């Protein structure tokens, strides 16, 4: 049972949280202008890196606030948590994953 540090409530067991997938996948400004394929990419496709990954989490059983996290997908370790705006940077600007 991993601990996750909610930026507001502090460390809690992982079952109190829900996963919100990859961070910084913005809702398209003008969906109507997208091709079917571009729209499908937004709806159905997400990155799946080996290493640090910027994600969204919500403290469902606690304060119910969404927050951003960078998590290493190899070890599950949370490298950082913070407000969404501060951690939604694309994974490409994160420290390089060591294979």
């Amino acid at each position, binding site marked *: *049972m991993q601990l996750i540090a909610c930026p*507001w*409530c*502090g460390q*809690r*067991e992982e*079952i*109190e949280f829900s996963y919100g997938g990859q961070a910084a996948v913005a809702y398209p400004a003008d969906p109507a202008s997208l091709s079917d394929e571009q729209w499908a990419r937004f709806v159905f496709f997400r990155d799946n890196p080996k290493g640090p990954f910027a994600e969204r989490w919500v403290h469902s*059983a*606690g*304060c*119910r*606030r969404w927050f951003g996290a960078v998590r290493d997908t190899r070890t599950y370790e949370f490298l950082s948590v913070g407000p969404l705006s501060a951690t939604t940077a694309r994974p490409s600007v994160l420290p390089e994953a060591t294979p």
Partner: protein
Amino acid sequence: MADTSMLVRHPLEARRTQLTELSAELDGVALELETPVAAVDLRLDPADPGPAAVADVAGGPLPAQPDTWTELVAGQALRLGPDEWLLTSTAARPEDWEFGLDEAAAEFGGTAVDVSAQRTTVRVRGASARRLLASGCAIDLRPASFPRGRCAQTLLGQAGVLLVAHGVDTRGDDDLQLFVRPSFAGYVVDWLVDAAQEFRRPT
């Protein structure tokens, strides 16, 4: 013939006697249903001066720290989130409590919504109160980590609860308060009653 009187009763009123009788047979644990109180969910920018203005109406300062609570003149102010508080009143009628606080908060872009019936309260007292709760609650309940003035929204068993630490009295009796959704209250009390069997006095 069903009772048609508009009396406010604890959702588990029918079990009050059971809890009293059980508590008399327990060592260091007493379970009690609390009288329902008026409550609002306050959403407000935590930056000044909103909280201070609301505090005037609420009857006491709003807690500034995460997961803490303060006493109001006739109630409690519990911090639920960065911009969220639960404010209770033992004196006001729910609709008045909502109206007054909503008016105060509105000036600062805040809102107050009546949630008086959205939660109900169970009190757990006694020297073993924390140990009883630790059988279903994963957060660190050691007195140093969860002293009087702290509160936490977390899980007890599989039910969401708002756990509130009150003081330890001179006899060393601990005092904790559990806010729970009324629909889950039966489950939570069943759960507490089952867990409390450990604390039965030897006969």
